[in-house]
Structures are given as structure tokens and as C-alpha cells.
């Protein structure tokens, strides 16, 4: 039962959740495009996962996400709002692709399992 319980399915599930959370954060930034003094936020992934993937091992740890202020944002507007619409839209499109890719991988794993159950 390696295919089902090797932790990858759980990791994919966590990644999909993380993408959903990131979409919410970006949605919030876009909604507040005209709110004076609003600073954008971003989802950051914890160091634990980064280390695991840098070592080339399959990361089996739970994906930890932290919602923090977007460090790359700078205030260029007179009202103190630091939302850059182009950047936020690009991030959102990228995040949606990422989310869809995770689901695609999850589905191909399931199809693999289905093939195995049917016996070819």
C-alpha cells in the first residue's frame, strides 16, 4: 500500500489547502486596492519544508503556512496603500495554476491506483 500511504497524498492535500489560503490572502489584497493605508499580505511557507526539499528528500512534513506582511511591497502612493495590482493579479494567476497542477497530480495518482485495482 505504498502508493496510498507514502505521505505524498497528504502532502498534496496540504499544498492544495495552502493554495486556497493564498488565494484568499491575494483576494483580500485585491479587494483593498483603494483602501488608504492598506498593506498587502502574503503566505509564507515555513523553513521546515524548505529544508526538507533542499536536501533532496521527499518532504513528508506537514506544510506550515504563515500569513505575514508582504515584504516585497513598497508604498509608492500618496494614500499609503502598497497594493500593486499587476503583481497581485500575476500572483493570483500563478497560484491558481499551482493549485490546479496539485489537483492534476492527485488525480493521476488516483488513476494509477484505479488501474492497479482493475488489474490493467
Amino acid at each position: 500500500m505504498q502508493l496510498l500511504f507514502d505521505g505524498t497524498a497528504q502532502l498534496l492535500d496540504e499544498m492544495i489547502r495552502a493554495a486556497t489560503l493564498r488565494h484568499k490572502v491575494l483576494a483580500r489584497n485585491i479587494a483593498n486596492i483603494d483602501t488608504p493605508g492598506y498593506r498587502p499580505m502574503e503566505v509564507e511557507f515555513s523553513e521546515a519544508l524548505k529544508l526538507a526539499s533542499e536536501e533532496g528528500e521527499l518532504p513528508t512534513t506537514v506544510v506550515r503556512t504563515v500569513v505575514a506582511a508582504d515584504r516585497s511591497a513598497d508604498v509608492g502612493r500618496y494614500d499609503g496603500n502598497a497594493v500593486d495590482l499587476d503583481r497581485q493579479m500575476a500572483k493570483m494567476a500563478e497560484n491558481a495554476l499551482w493549485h490546479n497542477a496539485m489537483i492534476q497530480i492527485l488525480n493521476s495518482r488516483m488513476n494509477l491506483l484505479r488501474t492497479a485495482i482493475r488489474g490493467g
Partner: protein
Amino acid sequence: MGSIFASMEINATALAAQRVRMNLIAENLANAEVTRTPTGGPYRRKGVVLGTRGTPGFEGLLKAGDVSGGVEVLKIVESQAPPNPVYNPSHPDADSTGYVAMPSINPVMEMVDLMSASRAYEANVSAIQIAKSMMAKTLEIGR
């Protein structure tokens, strides 16, 4: 799943707020020549004050179905700019010197504001469409 619905709700609050803003711009343009209002005097330009909904913390984002972080119209303010005097002695509202107090509305400014509101509206519509595509993809799991 709940989180995606919440994202759509957040963008919907922005759609509503931008819609209010666009309505006020329409009102400003329509009343650009109005010298008599129920409160007396010429029409005064109206604008919105936008604010972030709920406490501006990070906690609200982690709760599914929470729409704090959306945008809301805190209040509608009237411009305190002095009226624009226009010389027109034949106008019934002209004062003893022949000047009429006209609303100080700059159509160029209103149009620029309208474009800004309309772009913000479009950005939020796009965000909702992206959320919908993510949701549709989520429904494909296991299919």
C-alpha cells in the same frame, strides 16, 4: 472549500464598494451644474471613504468563511471645497455682483476616478473568476 467561498465573498465586498463609488461619480457628473439643493446652496461633490472590514489582523484569514479583510464604505463625505463663482447676471441664483455659485466639480477628475473604480471592479471580477476555476478544478478530484 469554505476558504474559496470566503475569497469570493471578500471580492464581492469590493465589487459592492466600487459600485457605490461609481454611483457617486455618476451623481457628481449629473449634478455638476446644480445650484439649488434641499440643504441650500450649490451641489457639493461626494466621495467615499473605504476601510478594511473587521479587525485588520491575520487571524481572520485562517478561519473558513470569514469575510473580515473585505472592503466596506465607511462613510460618504461631501467635499468642503468652496463653490466655483461663474459670472452670469441673468441667472436667478446670481448674487448682487452677478456671480452664481456653481458646484466645484471637475469632469476630468470625475472621469479619471471613474476609470480607477472601473479597473478595480474588473480586477475583482477576475479574482472571482479565478476562484471559480479553482473550485471547478477541485470538483475534478477523483474523477
